[in-house]
């Protein structure tokens, strides 16, 4: 494939929650992210696809601050967050989940859910001794929110379970619910249905769509084509660290370059 088939993403969107400008990242000699500029419009579910090793997870790590950028800038709601730590970016409204589910050793699902909201008064040792009532009030509200959200995701019965006992799919749901409790402006989900059985994957799709209808913006990496084609619009295609194209599911599905990228990736 020659260089000019890389058309890039659509830029200049009216109300971009997330915007990246010329992101670059190399691991040794391997260029994992190559001049990636994308924009995620508020209120959309933007999909991100690409063959294995295309650099999707790396891009998430760059956007969320877990990897250091070689070059480029990241903006959230128009603010430059390039110099910020991961937790500071999360506070700015940019919250991500991880491709491999993170199990919280020794915590119940209820506890795992309660880590989401923040900053909480009870996260300060000082408040624990001098504003106990405020801590109690917040904690009650957070427990209530956690229970309601789990019930809404139809896993309310799991609230007392050790979070290490959940199936992969249930864990993905808890992660989605917990990420939502941070009240993010944009949620970055890395393969939300990888390794999840089809029934549960359908549930997850339904819940994501519901949250989106209530105004939540998503950027979702997903390998499962039918899933992402059904859920996301627009879809950004990544290949060899570069943005190949962006378009509607139909445009992506019928694009020769995309087909070639996937066939090429499946090659040797």
């Amino acid at each position, binding site marked *: 494939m020659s260089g000019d088939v890389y058309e890039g993403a659509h830029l200049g969107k009216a109300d971009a929650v997330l915007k990246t400008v010329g992101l670059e990242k190399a691991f040794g000699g391997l260029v994992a992210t190559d001049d990636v500029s994308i924009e995620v419009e508020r209120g959309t579910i933007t999909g991100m696809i690409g063959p294995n090793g295309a650099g999707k997870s790396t891009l998430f790590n760059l956007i969320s601050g*877990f990897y250091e950028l070689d070059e480029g800038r990241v903006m959230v709601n128009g603010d430059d967050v390039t110099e910020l730590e991961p937790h500071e970016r999360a506070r700015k409204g940019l919250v991500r989940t991880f491709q491999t589910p993170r199990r919280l050793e020794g915590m119940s699902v209820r506890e795992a859910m309660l*880590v989401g909201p923040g900053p909480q008064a009870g996260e300060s040792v000082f408040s624990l001794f001098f504003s106990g009532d405020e801590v109690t009030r917040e904690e*009650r509200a957070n427990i209530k929110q956690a229970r309601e959200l789990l019930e809404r995701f139809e896993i309310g019965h799991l609230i007392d379970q050790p979070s290490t006992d959940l199936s992969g799919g249930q864990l993905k749901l808890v992660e989605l619910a917990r990420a939502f409790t941070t009240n993010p402006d944009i949620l970055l989900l890395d393969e939300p249905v990888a390794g999840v059985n089809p029934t549960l994957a359908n549930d997850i799709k339904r819940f994501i769509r519901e949250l989106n209808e209530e105004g939540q913006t998503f950027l979702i990496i997903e390998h499962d084509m039918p899933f992402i084609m059904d859920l996301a619009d627009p879809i950004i295609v990544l290949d060899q660290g570069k943005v190949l194209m962006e378009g509607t599911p139909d445009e992506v599905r019928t694009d020769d370059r995309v087909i070639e990228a996937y066939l090429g990736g499946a090659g040797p």
Partner: protein
Amino acid sequence: MSVATWVNETLVRDKSERRIFAVLGLITVLLVVGVVTGVVGLSFLLFQVSLVGMYALLSLGLNVQWGYAGLINFSVAAFWGLGAYCAALLTAPNSPLGLGLHPVFGFLAAIVVSALVAILIGIPTLRLREDYLAIASLGLAEVIRLIILNERQWTAGSSGISGIPALIPWLPLTRLATTASVVVVLGVLIYLFLRRTHRSPWGRVLRTIRSDEDLAKALGKDTYQFKMQAFVIGSVIMAIAGAFYAHLNLYLDPSDLVPLTTFYIWIAVILGGTGSNRGAVVGAAVVIAIREGTRFINDVPAIGSLGLDVAPLRLLFVGVLIILIMRYRQDGLLPPKDELIWPAAKDKASAPSGGSPKPQTGGDD
């Protein structure tokens, strides 16, 4: 309310623990009977209680660092030594500083100095992977020991500091009874402090960091700050234990700062159940029982007649004990059981969910 009921309601979390507390209760009763009948000397027992109390403080401190936050600190003995030297130097009239201040100032200095040292070690290491703190703390332990040994003009070096005053001399108790009471009061206060901080959003963030720091970051938690707080709080508690020791022993020299103390405290925390404050206290008692108990094994006629000196085999007993625990009680004697949720919020908030088959009483489960 009887003591047994109180223990049952506030400390015991399940059946297997009831047995452990029963054994602990039995030992306590035996010791009391021993004192009453004259088999066990009262001052000996009070000294042991003081040692257990001090070890319990050290274990509680390490539990905040390792049990709550997953921080690997190999300089328990160093923070303990810092506290002990702060107390000795400020209060002993014939220390190189020659100030002869009230013990309160020794404790305050121990708190301030240990907090500062903890921050200085934490700044370069807590942003990095967890092994950096482990390595740095190994180095710190040795550096502090060498400084105390060599800076004679400040610390009296290897000749040590004597004439450290006893605590609260006007109490109408023997010196050891006063010391034992002081450590029990200190222990209870610190235990209550830690319990409140543990079952809270703060404790929850620390546990999240312990099991997955990236996840905590992704949820917007400033993990560096939380780790620093846990490290400082733990180190300060260790230094308080050290200051207490100075007033228990009345004499201090650098040979007290052996790395073996750090090892014993790690054993106590793991044995008791990493992450559990109750476990840290019980683990400390078990370690002292082994450490001090092996001193007397040679006096048992059957063993003495073997012509074998058993005391040096102490570490072997510790090793065997660890293997037994790992085999039969992997998570320690009293592993953490509580949900890290603010108890005052829990009662009412979790009641309406109902239908939970798990019987729950009050804030503990």
